[in-house]
């Protein structure tokens, strides 16, 4: 008991000084669990997020765009790798986390349960979804857990590159033919509210559990802003960009509010968000089935690699005494 308290004291001292918790430091179980869940969900989102974009690699409309998209999806796999590795510093293996994803025990971002129906969706995902991700993630570069914060520095740099590429892909469309412009507007119409929903439920005190959760995360230095604060930041950043693109954000309420110094806007349909989280989205089943079958189809390859590594480790050991 006393030892436990001391450990907690050391932890809180670091947190209070806005320092970094490192893997060998003591930390409360709830902090560890909360971080594992968040990092795993983030990692899962990277790898499930490869699917809607991967859907257009074979059909990209120019070789340059194909190369950009391939590189982007590759980066996402890389992000998944960093994040699983960062989570492993908390004592949970990638295999365990993947098992939790595949069994539905852990979630991934609901945005990836929407389909990519046209090429413009690739631009919209880069611009809006990566834009929302960055808004969420930049504060995480100052997260209290060192390995997570460092992973986020690298990830945010790449995401911000992706976001510019997405914007530029849409710009090529809006400056293109009438069919291309229509494709871009249609993509914005479909991705706008799901992107707003990426920030999670609103900060209403009525939803006490969520509020508590956010509050605790803020005390621990894992979260720095509330959902609604982040959503506002995103809208404030994105609305002027839509003007540059010449696209209309599908929200009649959207306008600059001089008094607040922010854009006013309509909230997404949070009921839909909860439905999609709980499995009722257009692609939940497809994304999971794709992921699980890729994993199952690859089992024999991973087993072979393990068997080979074991054989050759043994062979080397046997050589030493000989």
């Amino acid at each position, binding site marked *: 008991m006393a030892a436990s308290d001391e450990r907690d004291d050391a932890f809180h001292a670091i947190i209070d000084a806005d320092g970094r918790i490192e893997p060998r430091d003591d930390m409360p179980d709830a902090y560890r669990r909360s971080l594992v869940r968040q990092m795993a969900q983030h990692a899962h989102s990277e790898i499930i997020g490869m699917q809607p974009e991967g859907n257009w690699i074979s059909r990209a409309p120019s070789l340059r765009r194909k190369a950009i998209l391939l590189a982007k999806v*590759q980066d996402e796999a*890389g992000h998944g790798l960093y994040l699983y590795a960062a989570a492993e510093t908390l004592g949970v293996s990638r295999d365990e986390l993947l098992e939790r994803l595949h069994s539905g025990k852990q979630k991934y971002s609901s945005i990836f349960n929407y389909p990519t129906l046209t090429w413009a969706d690739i631009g919209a995902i880069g611009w809006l979804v990566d834009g929302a991700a960055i808004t969420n993630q930049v504060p995480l570069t100052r997260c209290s857990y060192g390995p997570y914060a460092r992973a986020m520095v690298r990830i945010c740099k790449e995401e911000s590159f992706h976001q510019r590429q997405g914007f530029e892909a849409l710009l090529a469309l809006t400056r*293109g033919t009438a069919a291309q412009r229509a494709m871009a507007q249609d993509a914005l119409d479909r991705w706008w509210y799901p992107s707003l929903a990426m920030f999670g439920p609103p900060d209403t005190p009525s939803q006490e559990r969520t509020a508590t959760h956010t509050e605790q995360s803020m005390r621990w230095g894992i979260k720095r802003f509330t959902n609604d604060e982040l959503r506002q930041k995103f809208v404030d950043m994105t609305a002027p960009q839509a003007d540059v693109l010449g696209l209309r954000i599908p929200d009649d309420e959207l306008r600059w509010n001089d008094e607040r110094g922010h854009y006013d806007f309509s909230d997404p349909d949070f009921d839909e968000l909860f439905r999609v989280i709980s499995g009722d989205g257009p692609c939940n089943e497809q994304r999971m089935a794709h*992921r699980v079958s890729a994993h199952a*189809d690859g089992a024999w390859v991973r087993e072979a690699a393990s068997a080979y590594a074991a054989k050759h480790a043994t062979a080397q050991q046997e050589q030493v005494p000989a």
Partner: protein
Amino acid sequence: VSGLVEYTLRLGDDALILSQRLGEWITRAPQLEEDVALANIALDLLGQARSLLTYAGEAEGAGRDEDALAYWRDERDFRNVLLVERPNGDFAETMARQLWFTSYQYELYDRLRASADPTLAAVAAKAVKEVAYHRDHAAQWVLRLGDGTDESRRRMQGGLAAVAPYVDELFDPDGVTGGLGAVAVDPAALREPSERHVDGVLDRAGLERPPEPAHVARGGRRGLHTEVMGYLLAEMQHLHRSHEGASW
């Protein structure tokens, strides 16, 4: 079409079509590291294809750029070997294809660095480093699968048999390569070193060279492809062709 254009299209189409096939693995690889590795190889190949198709278009002088050549040629005008258009099959079959193609392509680019054509020499000098990595990647997997489990050995042996009919075409000389002198590399000269490399890997992996196939498939260099090629092109080209004249 000049020999140089034809030869450059062959090199570019090999890279483009194999890149397209490897891209199909993304999100379906056996582990995340392989999603990264296969995407990386596909990207390198796509980069090579873009340089080569751009140069082929310049050499042709008819105003066709990389996209015109990739998206507006029909099946009969593609010049890739049949090996690279084969469906991926399982991971072992893909690695068998990679083992042969990278062994060939490494020897090819290694010699093409000394091409009398400075552009081809420059593309080769950059690409040979990439392909050295691709070749090593394939060899490592063939070793692991050949010397892994019973199942992986069986599948690897099956993969080698599946691609065997498509190997010989890599090394076919013809009037185009023959007529280009020091600009091109004689494909026949690549057979011995490529086979030596492949045999070395198979030997270390405890795998056997598959028996001679009943049929040796060739024709890609003359635009005579297999029936899967049309579907690959339909998918690759549909969007681009749907918006003629648009920029992306």
